[in-house]
């Protein structure tokens, strides 16, 4: 909320709190999405392949993936804010965001860093599918997570 608005509400004795918590909602939804997409990475052998490429253990990458998804979800909430909360379009925003992350991450940045494709074959399909799935879940869960944060705010 902007400062002028807060001042006006405070002047009338109201203590305004954020009515929207998109970053929190996005982070929570992102975390859930990361956890949900993890089995797909394991099943497609992408987790092991990527871990090897990055010189990490499978366990470390498995723990890092939901954390990355949490940060990505928070960023998603911060960027799309009220629009991410759309009843009918939320899933589409989410899956598009998952696709965007795939384009920016495994396909562009990591490829540029490594000088070659991060993964190929089934593992590559697994990375794409995991990004799309986590994006879809992020988009679908954003609204209920947002509602949850609002309920907690009102309860307080």
């Amino acid at each position, binding site marked *: 909320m902007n400062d*002028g608005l807060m001042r006006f509400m405070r002047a*009338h004795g*109201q203590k305004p709190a954020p009515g929207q918590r998109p970053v929190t909602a996005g982070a929570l939804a992102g975390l859930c999405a990361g956890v949900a997409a993890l089995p797909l990475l394991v099943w497609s052998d992408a987790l092991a392949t990527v871990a090897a490429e990055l010189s990490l253990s499978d366990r470390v990458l498995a723990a890092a993936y939901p954390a990355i998804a949490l940060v990505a979800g928070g960023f998603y909430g911060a960027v799309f804010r009220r629009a991410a909360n759309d009843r009918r379009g939320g899933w589409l925003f989410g899956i598009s965001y998952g696709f965007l992350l795939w384009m920016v991450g495994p396909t562009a940045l990591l490829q540029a860093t490594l000088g070659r494709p991060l993964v190929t074959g089934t593992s590559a399909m697994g990375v794409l599918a995991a990004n799309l799935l986590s994006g879809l879940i992020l988009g679908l869960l954003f609204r209920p997570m947002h509602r949850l944060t609002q309920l907690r705010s009102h309860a307080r």
Partner: protein
Amino acid sequence: MRYSGDPFSMVDFMFATGIECSCPTIEGGRWRIDELEATDHYRYWRRDLELVRGLGLRYLRYGPPLHRVFTGPGKYDWSFMDQVAEAMQQLELVPITDLCHFGVPDWLENFQNPELPQKLAEYAGAFARRYPWIRLYTPVNEMYVAARMSALDGAWNEQLRSETAFVTAIRHLARASVLMMTAILRESPDARFINSESSEFYQPCCPDPDIQRIADFENQRRFIALDLLYAVPVRDDVHAYLLQHGMPAEEYEWFMGSKVAERAILGVDYYRWNEKLINSQGRVEALGELFGWYVITSQYYDRYRRPVMHTETNCLDAAEAPGWLWRQWHNVQLIHRAGVPVTGFTWYSLQDQVDWDIGLSRAVGNVNPVGLYDLNRDPRPVADAYRYLISMYRNNPFPLPVSVAD
């Protein structure tokens, strides 16, 4: 608050909101702008009613979709409204029923149709007969704006641009209001009316006599619909203007003899763009608030001397909306202190609106963030501010006594 000795006294001060329900046609009647559709009210109507209650409100300006309900001469489809009415009763909401909001069914064509007043009266009578528990009505919303936008500015419905078309539209709308009120009272003798009108004011920019003349005429024109409805004689030059543009002298006398609106509240709508400047080119320009609701409403009250209600306001900038809400409320308190009986206050509308930034002239789909809730039904900051305001003033809207001497 209570106005003792007045048979039309209000038991409660009416804190209200409204569901935006404008439904004019555009592009020669090929498209209908249906705000209930655009804002997803047909889909989420039950949730919308619950949100109203959740804000601590009981009064709701609500316009059933005339073009969907009144399907032909003597034909009505009540299926949607029956569900809404039942839910309203369950939630103990008190609707201020808005029977005609800028549009009419296709088969009634537009505001130039001479049969319109009688047909709308039939509709009003049928509505009151079907929902006898409803007591509050706005027969025709903002007659001046409806006539101006349709017959003078060429944006809606008949899309004409002539003084004769304007006079015809305003005659028909005022006549429709009188006949609708009569029909409703026949079915529901204790009905009350809130005639919502857009408050307008035209300020001449400079001393140029032509500019002064234009502003003076526009400041008379804004009153014509209410003058006819409330049987207040118009100024001589306006009377001549009406007759010159097609109003029969006997029809004017019929309006002046009408007593049906004696039990009506004057609803005064106010937005930032309602006050206008006649610029040096003689054109109308909306430059924002010049004097405010208090000053403009005082002009209307001085002319009509009846209880007033602030029946519409909002702010296009969602971040500024809480400030705008409080300013409007303080205007209401100030006018009460000046001795004007004020019966209610309204933030309009419950949900965001669509394409009002372009005056509903095209179906673009611009979402205007003016609602207490956005189109996902998530609250905007102004919803919290309004809830807080209501909780503070619900039981005593005017803590300070009337002080005419101030």
